């Protein structure tokens, strides 16, 4: 009982937030819902006994990748023609749905996080199989070694492509 209720609670938040990501037409609102959705998924991971995955989910996705997304959208939006729409000033009712939704969902997650901290001290919540970081590491470099290598090749390709695009153009013919 003590694991299932908060798990489904977080899962429901994740589903609602994810639906709002794909149904909304505004990029920034969608991004904020995506942040909330990722945080909710992290809480889900924690409750099914994968605290390591939960930590990485927040650090890598919510903390780094989506900050870059928000960053990019933030920069481009200021120059856009439909600035009023994006900032929710069109009919002045936009800001409510735009900012209120994510913050309510995030607030619920915060309540759940406090619940984890207060009630858990881990033992009674996660009595069943907790996957520690060590097991993850052993699995990654054991049975799943091929997958890790493929992923790293993909990242290398991305890195090379990024370098290529960011390279300044050399004026006048070939470098």
């Amino acid at each position: 009982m003590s694991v299932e209720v908060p798990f489904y609670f977080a899962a429901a938040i994740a589903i609602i937030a994810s639906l709002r990501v794909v149904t909304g037409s505004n990029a920034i609102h969608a991004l904020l819902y995506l942040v909330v959705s990722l945080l909710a998924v992290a809480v889900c991971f924690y409750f099914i006994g994968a605290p390591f995955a939960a930590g990485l989910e927040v650090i890598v996705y919510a903390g780094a990748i989506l900050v870059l997304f928000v960053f990019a959208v933030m920069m481009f939006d200021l120059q856009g023609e439909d600035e009023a729409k994006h900032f929710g000033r069109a009919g002045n009712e936009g800001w409510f749905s735009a900012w209120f939704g994510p913050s309510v969902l995030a607030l619920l997650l915060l309540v759940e996080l406090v619940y984890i901290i207060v009630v858990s001290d881990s033992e009674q919540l996660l009595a069943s199989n907790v996957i520690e970081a060590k097991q993850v590491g052993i699995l990654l470099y054991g049975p799943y070694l091929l997958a890790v290598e493929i992923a790293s090749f993909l990242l290398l390709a991305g890195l090379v492509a990024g370098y290529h695009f960011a390279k300044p153009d050399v004026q006048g013919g070939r470098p």
Partner: protein
Amino acid sequence: MMADLMPVDFINTQTLFKLIEIAVILGLLIPIAAMLVWVERRMIGIWQDRHGPNRVGPGGILQSLADLLKILGKDEFTPKFADRFTFIAAPIIAAVTVLMSFAVIPFSDTIGVSNLNIGVLFFLAMTSLAVYGVVLAGWASKNKYALLGSMRAAAQTISYEVFMGLSLMGVVLLTGSFNLRDIVLAQQDGWFISTQIIGFIVFLIAGIAESHRLPFDLPEAETELTAGFHTEYSGLKFALFFLGEYLGVTLISAMSVTLFFGGYLAPSFLPANIANMIPALVWFIGKVFILIMFFILLRTSLPRPRFDQLLAFGWKVMLPLALFNLLLTAVLRLTGVISGAGDINHG
């Protein structure tokens, strides 16, 4: 609603005690952060051969209270052109994420909010979420200086987060655990600063960058960007940003102490009977205070680099250093030159 969900666990004496503990820690941390403002101004004054604020109360100790009253008396102003809701939410995010990080710090052998077994990761996660406060503040202000400030903040925080995480991994390697309490207990025979000096230096520099303190306060560089991301802020909302910054300094100091300076443990060279006379909490607070003083001294003595210099320094110096430290620690640990707590199962 919460009571329906957890009728069994939620209300019992243990939980109640935990809630009270959280309230007490919060109730002490916030005034301490406020006092730091006065301590900093006074210490900078002394180091620069002037008095600093010394008029309010004995030695000026009530200066923070006077500042608080003044700030409360200010008009709670939100610019017409700002995005109202985000404008209010951003300082709250900035303060709450820092406060949440304190949940995993062991203040003494019995005091500490949570004993999460992913404590180090929790700390990293909360510091990486803190950047949203700054980014959203700059964006909601719709002011070009604020936007430039928050752009710098995002780039700086994401970059320095990488090295901060890597610099901690040496300690994690030696302990074999992400649990901060285990990390403290692993330092009973010798603090990790003795073997992780590179890790400590990288962590400290990254920590200064994360909390936007003076050598690295480019997001709010007043000579170029008026006040950076909080240009449009005033009154209580500005106070929250200010509070977040000083809480951030306290947090980085507390984390350094926990990870590299033995947390609440007394130095191992002291005889046990002398070390036991001083309670663990006092050791912890004393060490944190020394580190905070160091932060303040850095602020008074170092100039601010240019923004591209800051990022280049990060990626070209700090990243190789952190990786080198990690590799060296791993090699020494595997060959048995450094012994760590926790066992290594070969195979």
